[in-house]
């Protein structure tokens, strides 16, 4: 399985998409208006973010915009909303480019029948990759409407202006025509083929100003429907038999007692053993009545041995960057610092577990699923059930958190198989134990750093190796001539005893923890204030700017660690965004308990579409990041997962909440960069450095539990 990733990739390349949209089919359900089709693949300015051509379905556009006959603007996109706020920020971009009020924009997201194909919602790509396209489409639609208005009003385009969907004569504003009047009876379909001019930040009316999310009312009244809230007549709740450990094969099965329960539907098809009932509590009961024996699996590796196991398993190596000669760097260094950093497995743990409700409508399977990847799920279901993709519809639904964990579609495939087998609507809602068992954890990882510096604190060597976390965030940004950054077994899955996958800013949390801890150790050894040490070794202007901004906001005063104040600093870059964090912590020297008092974050993310949404993402990242920094760690013995619920897997709670201050550094002339992930990357490093500053204990392993802190305090 070492090559599994590559194999999977190869298969994906070979699979010819069974879906054959006819453009007319796709558009016929729309009424009149102006329709702009657009595709990420056609824009050179999005180089590197487009869909690979072999994965591109037909037609080759993946979103569209409609200015309807009622003058309302609708965007149809396969992206999904899971709490990150893009349903609001994308609407803001359209409202601005089209000069309509925000209330006049509808976002239709993630419905595989209504929306064209999309790869999925991850990687902080929605705003930075999809946003510019959407704006261009909005600008294109506006230009068409202006042309039409010019004919209608018998005025040249440059005499016209638009406000709230009304085109008017700048010299005589009473001479006007609305978008609704212009589009009535029209059907204009245009493919966006070049980059039309979009508005300059100085022309924004909506973007750049804080806007609250659009879906709060439904959420505070309980009306928002998540996939488990779909209730259909005759629906069965399914409970699936699970092995006690990953890789454990079933030896024997006795379902007789379960089958005696009235109303139970028992399904045994290949690996799928499920009990279904109209009452979820009875389905639970029935599952507990199944007697099954499984073969035992090796209890290795475990939480202790995993790191050595990973390092020994690594074979593939990619050079991320290098320059000069590390041996030369070693020679010219006055002091060498060599350290190793460890990071355990971390779960996504959304409060909504993986859930899917599925039903047959004739030949079609209709699905409501908590997923970040509706089109990926559709393909998975179609391939498993051997039906054409057109016969599977994944519908838009609220999603109770994703964080990278809701792309795999096991629960969806189970619900789809069961609805097909039983002929009834079926809901599969994982228990918390199933959620922890099948989660695609952030991989355990090891980072080895050998660095060197002169007596005056100039970095002269940077030799960096990351095992299994991935290359994202491993690139250093120091002004050092002799350096090498290597990523070993990035994305490899074989060595892990269970599934791993992307977890909010994949790789970067591990890499930033290691790098920022290490640079602090160097500053300490050099006897230099950690901020000053970084500033004297970093030339990247964007990084310098966020460092200076955060220091100013925090009120950082130079002191060499360990100052006893409990102040920490970390910085990094993710999804083209730059972040710097400062934190203040208190450490209980008797118990090892850490209370984070205050966290300040400066973030430079280019153009900020919705400062309110971006601020919420920073706050969310800081709060969530406390968990992987201080407590979260999957407990396992080989394929057996001992972590089963929140009583043994502690995520941040109210009492952990620090005072949080966010500064979004003004860079609105730059393109927008990522926002949902970058501010979480510094949380390990900033707390590790603050703990050291507080009590002199240096932690080399995440999470920094009280036991590990007490151990480190002993030296």
């Amino acid at each position: 399985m070492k090559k599994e990733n590559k194999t999977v990739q190869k298969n994906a390349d070979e699979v010819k998409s069974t879906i054959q949209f006819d453009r007319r089919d796709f558009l016929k359900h729309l009424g009149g208006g102006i329709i702009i089709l657009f595709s990420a693949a056609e824009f050179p300015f999005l180089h590197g973010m487009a869909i690979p051509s072999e994965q591109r379905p037909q037609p080759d556009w993946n979103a569209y915009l409609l200015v309807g006959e009622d003058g309302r603007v609708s965007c149809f996109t396969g992206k999904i909303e899971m709490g990150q706020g893009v349903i609001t920020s994308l609407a803001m971009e359209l409202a601005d480019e089209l000069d309509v009020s925000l209330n006049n924009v509808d976002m239709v997201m993630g419905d595989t029948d209504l929306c064209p194909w999309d790869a999925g919602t991850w990687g902080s790509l929605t705003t930075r990759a999809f946003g510019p396209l959407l704006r261009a489409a909005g600008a294109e639609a506006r230009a068409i409407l202006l042309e039409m208005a010019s004919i209608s009003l018998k005025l040249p385009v440059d005499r016209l202006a638009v406000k709230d969907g009304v085109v008017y004569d700048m010299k005589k504003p009473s001479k006007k025509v609305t978008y609704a009047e212009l589009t009535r009876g029209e059907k204009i379909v245009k493919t966006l083929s070049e980059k039309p001019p979009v508005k300059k930040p100085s022309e924004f009316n909506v973007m750049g100003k804080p806007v609250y999310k659009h879906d709060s009312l439904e959420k505070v009244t309980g009306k928002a429907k998540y996939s488990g809230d779909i209730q259909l007549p005759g629906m069965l709740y399914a409970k699936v038999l699970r092995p006690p450990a990953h890789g454990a094969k079933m030896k024997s099965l006795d379902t007789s007692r379960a089958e005696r329960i009235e109303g139970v539907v028992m399904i045994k098809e290949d690996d799928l053993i499920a009990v279904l009932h109209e009452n979820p509590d009875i389905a639970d009961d029935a599952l507990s009545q199944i007697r099954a024996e499984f073969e035992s699996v090796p209890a290795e590796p475990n939480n202790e041995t995993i790191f050595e196991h990973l390092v020994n398993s690594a074979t593939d190596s990619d050079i991320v960057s290098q320059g000069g000669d590390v041996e030369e760097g070693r020679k010219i260094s006055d002091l060498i610092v060599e350290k190793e950093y460890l990071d355990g497995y971390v779960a996504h743990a959304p409060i909504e577990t993986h859930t899917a409700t599925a039903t047959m409508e004739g030949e079609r399977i209709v699905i409501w699923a908590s997923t970040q990847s509706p089109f990926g799920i559709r393909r998975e279901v179609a391939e498993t059930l051997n039906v054409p993709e057109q016969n599977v519809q994944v519908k838009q639904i609220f999603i109770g958190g994703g964080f990278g964990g809701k792309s795999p579609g096991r629960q969806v495939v189970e619900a789809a198989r069961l609805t097909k087998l039983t002929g009834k609507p079926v809901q599969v809602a994982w228990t918390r134990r199933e959620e922890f068992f099948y989660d695609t954890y952030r991989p355990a990882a090891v980072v080895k750093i050998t660095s060197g510096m002169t007596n005056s604190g100039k970095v002269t060597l940077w030799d960096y190796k990351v095992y299994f976390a991935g290359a994202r965030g491993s690139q250093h940004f120091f002004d050092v001539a002799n350096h090498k950054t290597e990523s070993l077994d990035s994305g490899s899955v074989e060595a892990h005893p269970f599934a791993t996958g992307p977890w909010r800013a994949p790789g970067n949390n591990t890499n930033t923890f290691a790098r920022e801890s290490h640079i602090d150790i160097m500053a300490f050894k050099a006897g230099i204030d950690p901020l000053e040490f970084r500033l004297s070794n970093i030339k990247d202007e964007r990084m310098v700017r966020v460092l200076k901004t955060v220091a100013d906001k925090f009120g950082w005063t130079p002191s060499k660690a360990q100052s006893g104040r409990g102040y920490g600093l970390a910085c990094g870059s993710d999804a083209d965004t730059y972040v710097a964090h400062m934190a203040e912590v208190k450490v209980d020297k008797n118990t090892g308990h850490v209370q984070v008092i205050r966290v300040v974050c400066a973030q430079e993310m280019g153009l900020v579409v919705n400062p309110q949404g971006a601020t919420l993402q920073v706050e969310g990242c800081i709060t969530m990041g406390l968990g992987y920094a201080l407590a979260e760690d999957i407990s396992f013995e080989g394929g057996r997962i001992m972590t089963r619920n929140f009583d043994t897997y502690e995520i941040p709670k109210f009492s952990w909440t620090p005072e949080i201050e966010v500064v979004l550094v003004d860079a609105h002339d730059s393109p927008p960069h990522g926002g949902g992930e970058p501010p979480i990357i510094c949380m390990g490093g900033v707390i590790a450095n603050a703990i050291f500053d507080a009590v002199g204990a240096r932690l080399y392993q995440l999470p920094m539990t009280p036991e590990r802190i007490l151990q480190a305090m002993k030296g």
Partner: protein
Amino acid sequence: MNEPIKFELNDNPVEFLPDGEKTLLTVLRTRFGLTGTKWGCRIGFCGACTVIIDGEPVRSCITPVEDISGKKVITIEGLTKDGVLHPLQNAFIRHEALQCGYCTSGMILNAYGLLLKNPEPTRQEIIEFMEGNLCRCGSYGRIIKAIQTAAIEMKGGVR
């Protein structure tokens, strides 16, 4: 033979004949279609399923069906009266004290339970009372502020 269970649900008298349901959570969701009450852990640990019974916030996922007989139950659907949002619901919107929204019903009802007992809680009292409600998106700081705002707006008069 099962006896019908009678209780008051969001100010209305209701009854139902149990048919294998074990918990109040299941009854609310499947018998009364009130899906605003969510589940997260089913061991009473995350607070997503919180409802109010006789003025006390309880975890409906571990509340046995038999225990609700004769009780007054309030769910998120019952907090809005005549189309007017409860001050807590308003405050959650105004402070944007939510992201994905999945924990929100439980958060609001637990906070409601707090304000029923203690209409003017300190920040520390809010934190202690809310400690058992989990939010993975990281909205705690905003939820604390929303509860403070709602408390001030209600001026000690909790409805």
